[in-house]
């Protein structure tokens, strides 16, 4: 019972934070609302026997990714965001579609076919062990065991993916070639213009 009450409080905070992000006119406020939402999701992970993922969620999502967002917003000076679109009919249509999606997905997920296939409440307590493992379900050790045995190749692939993303971000975000060097060295700039 206590767990359910906590769940509803956290769910309310998460949904209100998401709505706050959608309706905010300041990009920095929207980012901070999203941090609240991600922290709520990390707390849900704690309640779902995933303490390792909860910590990763806070460090990677609420920490690193949101700081990256804040960096870009402040770098571009794009804090002010206007709400109104150039297409007037788009806002009511979008709201109708979103409500329809919410209702339909709730109906489908609560339908008896789906509910029967799901074990209603998991028989997992904090100290139970997952099959074939000596460690608690969802602990860092158990995740590591699965990650470095069954999912070793995908794990290596993510390393390559992160390298590609890093190189791509550097290539995309830098100035046009040579521009920065000229600006740092005004003499060379004047020489090149004299040569022109």
């Amino acid at each position: 019972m206590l767990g359910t009450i906590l769940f509803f409080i956290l769910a309310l905070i998460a949904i209100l934070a998401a709505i706050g992000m959608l309706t905010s006119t300041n990009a920095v406020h929207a980012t901070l609302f999203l941090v609240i939402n991600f922290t709520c999701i990390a707390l849900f992970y704690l309640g779902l026997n995933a303490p390792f993922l909860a910590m990763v969620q806070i460090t990677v999502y609420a920490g690193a990714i949101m700081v990256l967002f804040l960096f870009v917003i402040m770098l571009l000076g794009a804090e002010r965001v206007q709400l109104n679109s150039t297409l007037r009919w788009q806002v009511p249509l979008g709201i109708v579609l979103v409500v329809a999606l919410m209702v339909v997905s709730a109906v489908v997920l609560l339908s008896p076919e789906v509910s029967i296939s799901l074990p209603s409440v998991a028989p997992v307590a904090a100290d139970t062990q997952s099959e074939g493992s000596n460690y608690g379900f969802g602990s860092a050790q158990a995740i590591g065991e699965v990650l470095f045995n069954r999912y070793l190749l995908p794990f290596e692939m993510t390393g390559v993916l992160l390298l590609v993303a890093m190189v791509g971000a550097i290539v995309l975000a830098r100035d046009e070639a040579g521009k920065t060097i000229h600006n740092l060295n005004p003499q060379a700039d004047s020489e090149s213009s004299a040569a022109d």
Partner: protein
Amino acid sequence: MFEETSFLVPTNYYIILSAILFALGVGGVLLRRNAILIFMSVELMLNAANLAFVAFARSMFNLDGQVFVFFVMTVAAAEVAVGLALIVAIFRSKKSIDIDELHSMEG
């Protein structure tokens, strides 16, 4: 025993919450015109999917779902890095990140 089970929330609740958060993320993509806010809405959708993954992982008593969430987070981090670099590049050339004004492909 009673104290342990009293903290367990049915998986259905988590799935419904995940559906609501996902729909809100879709609404952000549909309604907002700012590229950065659209990106944040995509992150919201990814997190809703992650929540469903973890809920199903507990329900099925299987760690694969949690490992998959780990991979989704990695891909999301890479996607954000590249996407924000793209936004910076677009802002340099167009002086705006309003996607309504980005209807030409010329640089």
